[in-house]
C-alpha cells in the first residue's frame, strides 16, 4: 500500500510537569515516528505547555501517532494544524564574522531580508531571522557563501488562525 508522505504539524497542549516531554517523545520513539522539529514552551497558563512537532509521514501513520499521544494522561489535547488554517513561524540565529570583503553584501542582506542584528562583539555578529521555513532557508542560502560560522534554529511554532 503506497501512501503520500507529507508534512504534518501536530500541536499539543500538555500538563507542565516534569517528565511529560519524555512521555511524548517515548510515543514518537516507540512507533518510529521521526521528528523534524520540536518546540516546547509554556502557554498563557503556567500549568500548561504547548508542544509543536513537525514530521514528514503518511497521514494514516500520523493518525495512529495522534491517537497514542491522546492516550497519555498528561496530554490535554492533540490537533493537527493545516497550512491554510494556521499561522506558522520559525526563527534562526546566524553567527557570522564581518570583514572588509563581506561587509557590503552583508549590509545589503540585512536590509533586504529584514534581519535583526541582536549581538555584535568585535567583528562577530549574530543575526536573527524570522519567517516560514522557506524564508529562513533563503536567508541562510544567501549568507552561507559569506562565511556563516554557526546557526541555531527553532522548529516551527504554529497557531490555528481564527479563534
Amino acid at each position, binding site marked *: 500500500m503506497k501512501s503520500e508522505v507529507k508534512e504534518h504539524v501536530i500541536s499539543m497542549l500538555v500538563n507542565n510537569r516534569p517528565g511529560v516531554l519524555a512521555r511524548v517523545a517515548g510515543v514518537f520513539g516507540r512507533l518510529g515516528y521521526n521528528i523534524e522539529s520540536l518546540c516546547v514552551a509554556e502557554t498563557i497558563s503556567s500549568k500548561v505547555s504547548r508542544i509543536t512537532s513537525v514530521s514528514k509521514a503518511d497521514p494514516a501513520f500520523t493518525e*495512529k501517532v495522534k491517537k497514542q499521544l491522546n*492516550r497519555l494522561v*498528561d496530554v490535554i489535547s492533540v490537533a493537527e494544524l493545516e497550512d491554510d488554517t494556521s499561522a506558522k513561524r520559525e526563527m534562526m540565529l546566524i553567527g557570522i564574522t564581518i570583514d572588509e570583503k563581506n561587509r557590503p553584501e552583508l549590509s545589503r542582506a540585512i536590509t533586504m531580508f529584514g534581519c535583526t542584528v541582536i549581538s555584535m562583539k568585535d567583528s562577530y555578529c549574530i543575526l536573527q531571522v524570522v519567517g516560514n521555513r522557506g524564508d529562513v532557508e533563503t536567508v541562510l542560502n544567501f549568507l552561507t557563501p559569506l562565511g556563516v560560522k554557526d546557526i541555531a534554529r527553532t522548529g516551527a511554532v504554529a497557531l490555528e488562525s481564527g479563534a
Partner: protein
Amino acid sequence: MERTGAEILLNTLSEEGVSEIFGYPGASTLAIHDCINETGIRHLLVRHEQAAAHAADGYARATGKVGVCIATSGPGATNLVTGIATAYMDSTPMIALTGQVTTGLLGSDAFQETDIIGITMPITKHSFLVQDVRDMASTVREAINIATSGRPGPVVIDLPRDVLAARCNDDEEGGGGFLEQQEIHFGEEELRRLKQIARLLNESERPVLLVGGGVKLSQAFTELADVIQKGNIPFVTTMMGIGSVYTPNGFNLGLIGTHGTDLANRIVHQSDFILAVGARFSDRTTSVIEEFAPLATIAQIDVDPTSIGKNIKTDISVVSDIRVALQELLGLVTEKKREDWIDRIDRERERIAKEGSDDGCGPAGECIRMVQECMPEKTIAVTDVGLNQIWAIRSWKVKIPRGLITPGGLGTMGFSVPASMGARIGAIDHEVVVFTGDGGFFMNIQELATIGFYNIPVKIVVFNNGNLGMIRQIQHHFYNSRYRDSRLSDLVDITEIAKGFGIPSEKVAAEDPRKGIEKLCGSEGPFLLEVVVDENNYVYPIIPPGKSNVEMIYGRSE
C-alpha cells in the same frame, strides 16, 4: 492531624477501598511496612516481587477491584516489571508502589537506586514520582482514578524514602493536581454511529459477535447476554474475552484465532457481519489479517480510540464504554430468528463433532473437565502459558463472569501460581484452581512458601510432560522435530517439593487421574496434583505461522 507520608499513603489507599497489598519489604519502604497494620490494610508477604505483581493482577481480575503491590527501590522495583507488563497488556487496574532513594540522592547512582519510572514508561498507563509529602494523598487518588477508569491499566507510584518519612498536617495537603479524567461521553455522534451499526447488524444474514476482554473490564456481562439473546447472534471470544458471557444454548462458538476452535474460525470466515466488542483484533485473533473474515463488514465498539482500526480496517466504529453502548444497542437490535444461519452453524458443528477436529486436548483436556465437574460451579480457573493454557481455556467451560484468568497478551510463564493467590485472597467466596505446566510452575515455584504460610486454599494442577510442551509442538511441526533446548527432564520430584513446602500433593497419570482429582477437590487447604502427561500430547487444531484462520493443522504428522 500530623501524619507521615507513609501514613497518608496507606490511609488514602484504605479510603479508596484497598484492603490487601501484596509485597516484599526493603530499606526504602520500611516506613510503609512499619505502620501498615495500624491502617487496617493487610499485607501479604510473597517470596519474590514478581509474584507480588502477579498476585495483585490476579486479585484485580478476580474481583474487578484495583490490585496493589509494593516493592522496594532498585532490584525490588525491577522485579515487578514483568508483572506490570502483564497487567498492561491485559488492561488490569493495578497500582505498583515502589520505594525510591531519598530525593537528594536521585540520579546519583545511590545504593538500590533505579529509574523505575523510566523503565516502566512503555508498560504503564501512567506513573508518578511523589516529591512532596503534601502531594501524597492527591497523587494516590489520582493514580487509582487513572488505573480504574476508561481502559484500565497499571500505574506506578515511586516513593522516595524521605517523602515517606516527612510529616505533614492535614491542612497543608495540596488538594490540587487532581487531573479530571475525561469521562467517556456517549453523545449524539456516538448514538448515530451505533444506530448505523445496529442497522447493519439487523440487516445481516450471518452475523457474529466477537467478544474481547473489554466486556469484562466494563462489567457488561448481562448487557452482552441480552443482546445475544434478543438478536439470536452467535458469538466467538478472544482469549481475553473468555468468561464474559455464558449462554447455554449453543450460541457460543468458542475461542477464535491461533489456538481457537475449528468451529469458531470457520464460522467467522463465513460471516457477513462482525461486531467486535472490546477486542483489538490482535495477531493471535486474526492470524493473516488480509484473510480474516473476507466476506464480513466489520464494526467495532471500544473505549480506547487507539484500539479502533489499530490492526484491522473497520467499516464503522463507536468509541464508548462498552456497557453503555450495549445498553443502547439492546434497544436498537431487532428480534430475529436467523434460522438459516443457525442451521448452517449446527451442521458445521455436527460435522466437526463427527470428524473430532475440535477434540485435540487429549487426556489433559479430559482431566480439566473432570476437575471442573468435582469443583463448585463458582470456581475460578487460573492458567499459566503454553499447552496447559490452551488445554484449560478450551476444556474449562466458564460459567461465571471472571471465571477464567489467563495472561493472554504478554503470555507470561510463571503467572498462574502467584495470580491464583491474589484471586483466592480477593474472591473469598470462590474456589481457585490453577492449571500450569512444569515449565511455568518452576518459574515461580517459591510462591508455594507463601501459599503454605498463609494457608491459601488454592488447588494447583501441574501438567508435567518434562518439556516445554508448546515449544516442543512448534519444533515438531515447523522445525522438523528438532527438539532443541525444550526438554526440562523428569528428574525433579514435584510432589516431594510440594511436601517440602508443607503442601499436600499427589501424582497421577493423565490417563487415570480420578483418585488424585478427588483428593484435590476434597482437600480443605492448598493441594498440588501432579499430572504426568505424555510429551507427545499436543493441542489441536493450531494455525501455522503465516497461515489464515481456516488453514488449521488437526494432528501430529509422523
